[in-house]
């Protein structure tokens, strides 16, 4: 049997973002005495990604990245960072990984935290567009800032009205750009929220002078070298100095798949984040994992999942019993609105809106039958916190009390 406490053993981690970094530190906390070597193609000291489309982008170039951990912390915990180094292959039989320069590194335990990459849809002309970027890394944001720098009044077209697109719209608006959001569906945030939330954010952006256009399927992009013309299926055209693509992600699972690791909508892992290879774990956005609360497999794009799975994997690698049992949570900041979400709304058959007495302060409670599935809270931390508590305890909710904002949230469970 493997002894995780042996000091000569190696745990290699592919991917040094929220999942990988938290796993490395958690391994030390759980008592891993061996080497920890972490690889990432991104040359930057690993940083928080959520601020990229929010505070980091809107601050122009005056704000630095927010590091996940300081350089000193990696040294202190003896975690070796190989930044700017991609991994090309995994050989589970030989228990080694192959670096892009051809070198190999043997491992005893391997953690795959490769995350996801933005989808660049196959739109004619997208390859030759001027200043077209997705937004997932610091390098993307730096390119966007560079493109927007030479003055206010730049024309920006954002393809995709999801969270990334909308957060980016709000941030670029703050920088003085003219921003249009082109959404293919009939409403923004269609995949992730109820129509009432889509309406709220549509209005918020409109009030802040962002043009939100729905039912806009982009069919071509033409560049004259300086500017682009974005054409939609309905024949409409939009001029763009800068185009941001935010239409979703594709999980980075190809390398794992080639190595014979089971893939199903992501890297398939068990409750301790282990793949079908007993020495290979996978964590974060790239995984397809079982959620005990919702009793189904899910794939999540979130900091919460990355951090929680990282801790579970670390414990399991160190031979401790650990099972993933977390209720997902997310957040988004747009203009002065703070949206906090807990749970997964998929499959809901009823949404209850609870409006508080303050402006722009409300919450959506998603149910299937009598079971609460999730809560979206707008400028309403209280609803978020109580929603979290009710989800955790699975306490039945009195829907009539919930609708009535004069009844304190504390008192909405059925008695």
């Amino acid at each position: 049997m493997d002894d995780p406490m042996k000091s000569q053993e190696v745990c290699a981690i592919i991917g040094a973002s929220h999942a990988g970094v938290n796993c490395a530190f958690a391994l030390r906390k759980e008592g891993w005495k061996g080497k920890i070597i972490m690889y990432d193609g991104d040359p930057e000291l690993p940083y928080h990604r959520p601020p990229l489309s929010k505070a980091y982008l809107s601050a122009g170039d005056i704000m630095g990245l927010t590091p996940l951990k300081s350089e000193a912390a990696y040294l202190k915990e003896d975690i070796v960072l190989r930044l700017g180094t991609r991994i090309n292959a995994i050989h589970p039989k030989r228990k080694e990984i192959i670096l892009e320069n051809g070198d190999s590194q043997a491992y005893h335990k391997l953690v795959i935290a490769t995350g996801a990459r933005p989808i660049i849809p196959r739109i004619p002309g997208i390859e030759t567009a001027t200043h077209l970027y997705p937004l997932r890394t610091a390098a993307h944001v730096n390119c966007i800032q560079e493109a927007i720098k030479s003055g206010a009044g730049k024309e920006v077209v954002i393809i995709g009205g999801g969270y990334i697109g909308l957060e980016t719209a709000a941030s670029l608006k703050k920088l003085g750009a003219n921003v249009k959001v082109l959404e293919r569906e009939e409403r923004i945030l269609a995949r992730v929220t109820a129509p009432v939330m889509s309406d709220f954010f549509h209005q918020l952006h409109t009030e802040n002078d962002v043009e939100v256009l729905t039912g806009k399927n982009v069919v071509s992009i033409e560049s004259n070298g300086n500017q682009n013309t974005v054409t939609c299926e309905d024949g409409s055209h939009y001029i763009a100095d800068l185009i941001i693509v935010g239409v979703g992600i594709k999980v980075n699972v190809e390398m794992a798949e080639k190595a014979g690791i089971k893939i199903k909508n992501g890297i398939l892992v068990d409750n301790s984040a282990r793949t079908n290879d007993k020495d290979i774990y996978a964590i974060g956005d790239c995984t397809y994992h079982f959620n005990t609360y919702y009793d189904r497999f899910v794939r999540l794009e979130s900091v919460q999942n990355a951090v929680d799975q990282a801790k579970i994997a670390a414990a399991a690698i160190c031979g401790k019993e650990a099972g993933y049992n977390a209720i997902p949570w997310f957040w988004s900041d747009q203009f002065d609105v703070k949206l906090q979400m807990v749970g997964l709304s998929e499959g809901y058959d009823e949404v209850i809106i609870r409006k508080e007495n303050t402006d722009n302060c409300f919450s959506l409670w998603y149910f299937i039958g009598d079971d609460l599935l999730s809560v979206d809270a707008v400028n309403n931390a209280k609803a978020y916190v109580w929603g979290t508590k009710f989800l955790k305890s699975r306490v039945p909710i009195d829907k009539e009390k919930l609708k009535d904002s004069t009844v304190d949230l504390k008192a909405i469970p059925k008695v």
Partner: protein
Amino acid sequence: MAKITFITNDGEKTTLEGTSGSVMSLAVENGISGIDGDCGGVCSCATCHVHVAEEDMERVGEASEIEAVMLELADDVTEFSRLSCQIEISEGIDGIVLTVAE
């Protein structure tokens, strides 16, 4: 500039100097164990919970409304609880002692 002392769960005392930014950032930059700051400092995760020493509470100030609500998600909350991402470093808090929550 302010000197801030952190007492971690293992009883270790670390004094750090900061000039600006949040106490959470200072702690994370210096690897103070138990202060994670998973959300990056936007008062969304309650993973940077500290207990302020009683005698320093007046200088540090009480939690804001949102922060107080978010603290309800943390364990072991007392009247001296704060989320350290919401404490700005300034000369006014020089010398304070914070105990990292479990």
